[in-house]
């Protein structure tokens, strides 16, 4: 393997991780920006997405069944949580939200154990994306390229919706000042609900997409949670730009940290988080100045 292609592959690794983190964190950050809600159970929704993805794929024999089912089921679960719990926690302050959703993590972990067992389970990639592809002499797993592509697609769609459509304008208004937006005739509640559903669906999608690469196990949501929170906080909560910047920073720091500074790799993202917060106490691109 040539030097050039080695670094190209590592860059792709960084990109792939960044996209996965993006899918996971964008929902979390927009929900925070709009609803001021800190949802630690977001990681558990990701795990649920992975489990649903695997179960649906196993039952039907098609990866795409899981790919389609996971966002829907997770969004439905999100709706139940929203109506049953989170709606009434909206004004309860970040600490109570953190704790309620921490409780949810506990509940979810045991539900996963009861339904899917203690042992990790896995699934295979779709036939369409098995094997490896060659790009400019660089060989890379096709499925990972698919993840990169999907992440970029979601990123582009969200950016377009937010900047170019009526709906996007309303969401931005809501993030800026929800009371003002309500005065301007925006049905804020409806928008909140919609955004919450989309955020959950994206977490579910991330789970289904991650399932063939990582196995699904009860603690997977808790494991990914910290990285996701770091992405969101480093980027600055509530903004798409922040989620993108945070994902890339964390994804690349983690990838190149393991390559270049293997001995401090596990410290690196925490150091990054601490550093950003010391100098920018509300993250790099906060939704509100």
């Amino acid at each position: 393997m040539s030097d050039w292609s080695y670094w190209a592959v590592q860059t792709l690794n960084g990109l792939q991780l960044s996209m996965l983190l993006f899918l996971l964190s964008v929902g979390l950050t927009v929900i925070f920006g709009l609803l001021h809600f800190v949802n630690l159970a977001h990681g558990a929704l990701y795990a649920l997405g992975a489990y649903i993805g695997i179960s649906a794929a196993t039952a039907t024999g098609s990866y795409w069944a899981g790919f389609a089912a996971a966002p829907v089921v997770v969004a439905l679960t999100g709706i139940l949580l929203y109506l049953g719990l989170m709606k009434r926690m909206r004004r309860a302050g970040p600490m109570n939200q953190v704790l309620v959703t921490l409780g949810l993590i506990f509940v979810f972990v045991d539900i996963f154990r009861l339904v899917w067992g203690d042992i990790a389970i896995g699934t295979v990639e779709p036939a369409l994306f098995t094997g490896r592809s060659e790009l400019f002499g660089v060989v890379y797993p096709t499925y990972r390229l698919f993840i990169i592509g999907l992440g970029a697609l979601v990123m582009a769609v969200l950016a377009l919706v937010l900047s170019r459509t009526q709906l996007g304008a309303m969401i931005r208004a809501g993030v800026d000042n929800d009371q003002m937006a309500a005065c301007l005739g925006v049905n804020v509640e409806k928008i909140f609900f919609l955004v919450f559903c989309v955020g959950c669906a994206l977490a579910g999608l991330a789970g289904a997409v991650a399932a063939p690469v990582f196995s699904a196990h009860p603690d997977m949501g808790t494991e990914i949670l910290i990285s996701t929170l770091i992405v969101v906080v480093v980027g600055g909560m509530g903004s798409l730009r922040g989620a993108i910047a945070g994902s890339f920073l964390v994804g690349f720091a983690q990838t190149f940290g393991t390559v270049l500074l293997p001995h401090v790799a596990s410290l690196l993202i925490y150091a990054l988080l601490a550093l950003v917060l010391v100098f920018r106490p509300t993250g790099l691109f906060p939704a509100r100045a």
Partner: protein
Amino acid sequence: MIKTVTGALVCASFAVAAAGPASAADYKVGMLLPYSGVYAALGQDIDDGFMLALEEAGMVDQVEMVREDTEVKPPVGLAKTRKMVLEDQVDVLVGPVSSGVLGAVRDFVDQTKTPLIVANAGNDAATGENCSPYIVRVSFSNSQVNRPMGQWMVDNGVKSVYTLAPDYAAGQQQITAFADAFKEAGGEVVGQEYTPFRTTQDFGPYLSQAQSTNPDAVYVFYAGSEAINFVKQYDAFGLKDNTTLYGSGFLTSPLYVDAEGPAAIGVIGSLHYIPTLDTPENKAFVEAVQKKYDRVPSEYTVQGYDAGRSFVEAIKSGATDKEAIAKALPTVSYTSPRGPVSIDPATNNIIQNVYVYETVEGDDGKLTQKLLGTVENVKDAPNGCEL
């Protein structure tokens, strides 16, 4: 007359046993296992294996079981151990899965002279510099399962390896044991990396690095979900096509191999047990496990079974109290499903065969284990152990 009296007594004792086995039990066994947390499945396998051995010996009614969840946390494990020894007053302890828990309970077990049958935790030091006459290991030591692979791989034409393992004590011991043996046999380790323990999900960066050193083989130690992720990603990155993946056999344990899927085919590992061993003892065992628990036994099931079996053998030899059980345990020797086993009097670690196996697709399309070679009676050096 006498006959009927005896009969009545026998009936009565059965009735008592049925009514309250706790009060009628002759022995108390404390299971120190993870029933929740990342190793819960391992804990369950060990427990099942242990119960099977008791059942086989017809001793279920004579033994009262106390089960405590270590949660894979050393302080919790220690607290539970104290409870079982001081309050429940168990005669023997079985467990733990995690070496961390074993390290935590070692001094306490030694001081209270409570026999502990180690049913998994492989830390070398437990039967090395920190050995104890009360700690008998019937599972394996980290170096025991890996050392034989050094010579075996060189013998099979592998000249250079790249190694990977999680960055914690077990990972380091497993890899070091292999690497030392491999180098001694004339091989070359071209690269070595330790990945952050339990936080590494994406092995991409490491795999690219391994690939760039162009080794004959990659040798790793991973278990649990890390094993599944690693095996799948190793395949996805295409390394498997021209670089065989070797490893400590936990990598493709029957417990995870289904989750790994076709990516596991062709992976070669060394382990103290595989369910496809062609011996009468193993066949009977596999059948019994399938009948009772409806699954293929894993190495953990066998460890649980041997923990139970060695306890049974110790009792059969006439041991009745803690001290006697501790004395009797190291003397047991029998043919286990995994082959002939005995306890090394110098370290209290098990002496057993290590099997080199390849994961292959069976006739029914399911993944299975193909035996490639057997290294017999592998025994650890005392490593500072004085019993």
